[in-house]
């Protein structure tokens, strides 16, 4: 296209180009966004898988090959249906922790902790959480960044070093998995009890 000879049409042609460019930018931006979203989600899936989230947040069940994660309850935390009896008292010595066979309830010097429901269920999981809620929780080791302490064995001392980008990827993935309604019990303090 030769712009040198377009005295009158020049601005119009330029305006059309502007529209085309804006449209192109818009669709390019959408494509970029979609690709970025997919990459973020896949990064999150990878991080959740290798960082061991399922080890405690997906109940173990006894299969033909021994204990294995029950992926039908993936990342839904300690099953509400499994009401735990009082943890056995351990004798003095180096054994200090008792773990449920599901790997979702842990009793130790900190009291009893139950692993959280990380699925996007709105009432019992992370459904209503914002990314800020999630990031604040991991960074501070406090529930929602400002409440009670998050208890062992949650590896907050290590996970707090995740980058913002990694935490965003993890949260994006957790928001994408199937929601499972499962009300996890509140943790139990060692003493004094209420």
């Amino acid at each position, binding site marked *: 296209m030769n712009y040198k000879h377009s005295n009158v049409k020049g601005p119009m042609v*330029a*305006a059309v*180009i502007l529209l085309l460019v804006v449209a192109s*930018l818009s669709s390019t931006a959408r494509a970029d966004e979609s690709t970025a979203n997919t990459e973020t989600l896949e990064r999150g899936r990878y991080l959740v898988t290798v960082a061991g989230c399922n080890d405690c947040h997906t109940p173990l069940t006894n299969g033909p090959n021994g204990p294995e994660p029950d992926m039908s309850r993936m990342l839904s935390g300690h099953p509400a249906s499994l009401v735990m009896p009082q943890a056995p008292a351990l004798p003095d010595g180096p054994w200090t922790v008792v773990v449920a066979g599901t790997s979702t309830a842990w009793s130790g010097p900190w009291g009893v902790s139950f692993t959280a429901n990380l699925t996007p269920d709105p009432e019992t999981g992370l459904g209503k959480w*914002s990314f800020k809620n999630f990031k604040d929780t991991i960074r*501070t080791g406090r529930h929602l960044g*400002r409440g*009670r302490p998050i208890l062992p064995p949650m590896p907050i001392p290590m996970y707090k070093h995740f980058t913002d980008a990694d935490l965003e990827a993890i949260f994006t993935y957790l928001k994408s998995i199937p929601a499972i309604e499962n009300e996890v019990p509140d943790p*139990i303090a060692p003493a004094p009890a*209420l």
Partner: protein
Amino acid sequence: MPPAARFVLRFVAVPGVAAGKAMAAIAMVALAMAAPAMAAEAAPYAPPLPERLSDTGLYIAGTVSAGAGEPAPGVLAYTPQYPLWSDGAAKQRWLYLPPGTAIDASNPDAWQFPVGTKLWKEFGHGRAIETRYIERLADGTWRFASYVWRESGDDADLAAAEGVPHLPVAGAPGGRYGIPSRDDCLACHEGGATPVIGVSALQLSPDRDPNVPHAEAPRPGDVDLAVLNESGLLAGLPGALLDTPPKIAAVSATERSALGYLHANCGHCHNAAGPLGLLDLVLAQRVDAAASRAEVLASIVERPSDFETAGAATRVTPGNPQASVLALRMHTRNPLAQMPPLGTSIADVEGAALIEQWIREDLITGEEYLHELQAQQR
């Protein structure tokens, strides 16, 4: 730079293309897209925090001794009407606004403070223990720090970012005092519409509540809403708030104080504007007093609690504090259940007693409540 922006920059750089108005517009699109990326790459500059409190601008140089100093020119003392309970610590508070600036008070529930704003809050048990410091930086962000007073009282030193969980302090409950970490600062100060909690229209209202637990009488020279406004330090303050200073709407003096106590001790996290909005638990007051009271009551009275404790499963059960999770969690210092979750090691017996009295005697529900609401709206 976004790939799309790179594409546009290549396009506009083609030699021989005439530069008309439309092309200029395209170039502007390109620059507009590139600008945020360039801005994001430039780290905002902020000088490091001063190592000593005496270098933060609070005091006239050379005046600090015995845990006190003479406030520098422009440093204003203030005393909120509803104080935060901090294990019985005595407190003093100061505010500094750079010359020629003012607080944007057009939103009476979320004042906006100018760049360069500084606030200090001193905590003591018989002597000054720490002074907390908040500062608004040139890029609009806030930073938080704490300075620990030397036993000699000749200055206070910057605490580490992780705080000091158990500082030995004679006079503090159990002989120990917790210096907050920077994360702890954010827990309360980033929990609402504004990071400045104690300087607000309600907290500095000249119509002060006379029945507040642990109330501190304003000191001579303290600024309040009227003084700040007369001094030209408030911009856009709705005139109605000067004619009728903010006051919590309540059916009784007990309720007024109870709602004020909850506002000051719980509302910085439990409000509708901040990150805990998802809990639908509102204990913060707004200057629209009647609406605010209704909002608080609607979020607690006969509402199921996410946290069940000691047989109670309701946030507040009118007439029965023992069946009210809100009151029970104020009493306990079980670290997994206590409220507030940080900043206290012993329960505020006087504050909890006020809340229990309010729940037991003042809260009404059903027909009576509706009738009273209608009366208020009239």
